[in-house]
């Protein structure tokens, strides 16, 4: 059976129809973007930091096998068990075996996008392991049976009443609790006993340091440090691309990460794990899952520089107005749109079209990934590899939906960035770009299309002769 491409437009439509959620989502993420800008303006060396971060990452990726070997040797020397997983299935098997060996039935974990990639909970739970997400947002998503909708703030698409309902069902709290403080306290109270009795703890990680065999975990809630230090068994899962050569390189990345992500100078916790704690056992699983293949994609390998800050998502007008879940993938937003197709080209074929090509993602990226150029390149690749009708229909549908609701462009962004506030024209211009021959249009924007068409007719005719469109 052929995999069906994610119907991003249809999913986004449902999100767009829900005004309170949409408005909050849009404004919350834009607020994170603005806080990031404020932090950036405080550092005259910001652009220098970005250049350094990019250069360090590119160097590391070009020397990845050597650095991974160096990391492995140092980590082993410090008493860490190092495992390698070619894909999600192998990752899950490795984790399952470690837990089984220890007779561990209760696993507490902090947020890890890699374990989402591997769909680890779905593997462990039928094998009798209770997995408890301890990050508040991730826990909300777990209880609601949803994927994280954002890589940094997993439940950002939910409002207080949504959380109150979920907690009421699972924690027996007041379904009408409208205080975020008391809901967060409910999570603390519910999590603490589980943490104190867990058999094993699991974390993700933000960085591997080759020089010392250290992995670094950046978090805010304290749940990752609890998960790592309360049980005597700590398993960490990281993608093989998360490595830097020297401990001294961490300065560049820590200074960029939280400022880009949340607009705070640093996360509340920046934790360096170099070996097991006294009496404890530590495992690290290095996960490939498509990364080594991506390294060989000439136009897309630099996406491996990503430090998962989420800044490109916060700034993206399409992401803000469609919600992470509409992408139907572990990674959403601009970064998702350029890496998801490497996991499953057909399934995620529509995602690179979910962009206005305004370039804002590229401008905010702390490691200088040319995200919007890669989006454009993916469109070409996908147009060559896949049937166009489906993709095209969906793009048009999405464009029509967005165009049809001018209030959606209201906004948060007024007057701050011309490119973003002129969304409708950009959406239209760019979504149609690869299809020079396309004639139908959502009617509210006929005018704009005509001016676009006049301007681009010749150029696009030429291009479409080269492609298969």
């Amino acid at each position, binding site marked *: 059976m052929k995999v069906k491409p994610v119907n991003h437009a249809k999913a986004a439509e449902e999100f767009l129809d829900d005004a309170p959620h949409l408005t909050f989502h849009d404004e919350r993420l834009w607020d994170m973007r603005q806080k990031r800008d404020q932090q950036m303006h405080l550092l005259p060396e910001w652009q*220098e930091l970005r250049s350094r971060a990019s250069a*360090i990452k590119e160097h590391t990726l070009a020397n990845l096998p050597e650095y991974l070997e160096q990391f492995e040797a140092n980590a082993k020397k410090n008493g860490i068990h190092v495992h390698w997983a070619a894909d999600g299935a192998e990752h899950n098997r490795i984790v399952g075996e470690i837990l089984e060996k220890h007779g561990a039935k209760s696993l507490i974990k902090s947020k890890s996008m890699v374990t989402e990639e591997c769909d680890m909970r779905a593997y462990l739970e039928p094998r009798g392991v209770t997995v408890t997400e301890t990050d508040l947002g991730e826990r909300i998503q777990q209880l609601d049976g949803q994927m994280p909708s954002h890589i940094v703030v997993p439940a950002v698409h939910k409002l207080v009443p949504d959380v109150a309902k979920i907690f009421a069902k699972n924690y027996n709290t007041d379904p009408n609790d409208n205080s975020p403080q008391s809901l967060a306290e409910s999570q603390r109270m519910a*999590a603490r006993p589980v943490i104190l009795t867990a058999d094993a703890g699991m974390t993700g990680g933000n960085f591997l340091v080759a020089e010392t065999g250290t992995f670094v975990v950046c978090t805010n809630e304290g749940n990752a440090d*609890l998960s790592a230090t309360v049980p005597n068994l700590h398993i960490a899962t990281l993608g093989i691309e998360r490595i830097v050569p020297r401990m001294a390189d961490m300065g560049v990345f820590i200074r960029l990460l939280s400022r880009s992500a949340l607009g705070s100078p*640093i996360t509340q*916790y920046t934790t360096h794990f170099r070996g097991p704690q*006294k009496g404890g056992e530590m495992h690290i699983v290095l996960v490939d899952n498509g990364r080594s293949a991506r*390294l060989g994609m000439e136009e897309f390998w630099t996406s491996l520089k990503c430090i998962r800050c989420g800044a490109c998502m916060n700034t993206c007008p399409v992401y803000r107005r469609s919600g992470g879940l509409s992408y139907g993938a572990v990674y959403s937003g601009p970064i998702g749109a350029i890496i998801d197709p490497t996991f499953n080209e057909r399934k995620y074929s529509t995602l690179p079209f979910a962009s206005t090509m305004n370039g804002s993602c590229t401008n905010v990226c702390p490691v200088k990934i040319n995200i919007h150029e890669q989006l454009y390149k993916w469109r070409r690749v996908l147009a060559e590899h896949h049937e166009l009708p489906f993709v095209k229909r969906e793009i048009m549908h999405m464009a029509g939906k967005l165009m049809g609701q001018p209030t959606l462009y209201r906004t948060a962004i007024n007057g701050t960035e011309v490119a973003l506030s002129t969304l409708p024209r950009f959406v239209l211009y760019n979504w149609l770009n690869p299809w020079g021959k396309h004639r139908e249009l959502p009617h509210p924007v006929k005018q704009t299309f005509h001016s676009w068409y006049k301007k681009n007719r010749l150029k696009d005719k030429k291009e479409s002769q080269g492609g298969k469109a």
Partner: protein
Amino acid sequence: MSSRDTILATLRANRPDPAAHELPPVAVLGDMDAGKARFEDALQLLGGQILLPQEGDTLATAIARRFPDAKIICSAVPDFEGTIRLEDVTSPQQAAATDVLVVRSPFGISEMGSIFLSEAQLNSLNSAAHLTQHIVVILSEKNLTANMHTAYVERPEFHTANYGVLMTGPSATADIQGVLIRGAQGVRSLSVWWE
């Protein structure tokens, strides 16, 4: 072939030309102010507090005033009594009953208001720093380093500690409708006491 060898072989075959991507020298950039005022501003921005002595205060009286309801005050330092010593706490379950933990940090980072703790300060019971409700951190101004670059370049702890955490204020979350809540799952408050 093992997955390890397959992955490494694929990386070797696929990687971009290493010669075209040199490693830049270590960066030490930005503001080099290693002062106390900068540290305090940064700490307070992230919700941390300064435990200020009043006339005639000792650490003990300052803690008593700041945490009047605290029953279990656990000390990880030789020069402060508390109600229990960290050496006498033997498990995370026991540590979870702590109201206030008093520790000494070997260094702080002025840029961020961060303090560092490792197993050396926590008597190898690392969870104690996160299970306690509140933490009081003794810090000396002379142990401040300017920023993240200088911290990673200068401090040997990053090369020696098995567990090394930079804590910057208390645990926090904004996962419910973007509302910032200080005191999420780890410590509810973090206070610095200058010595």
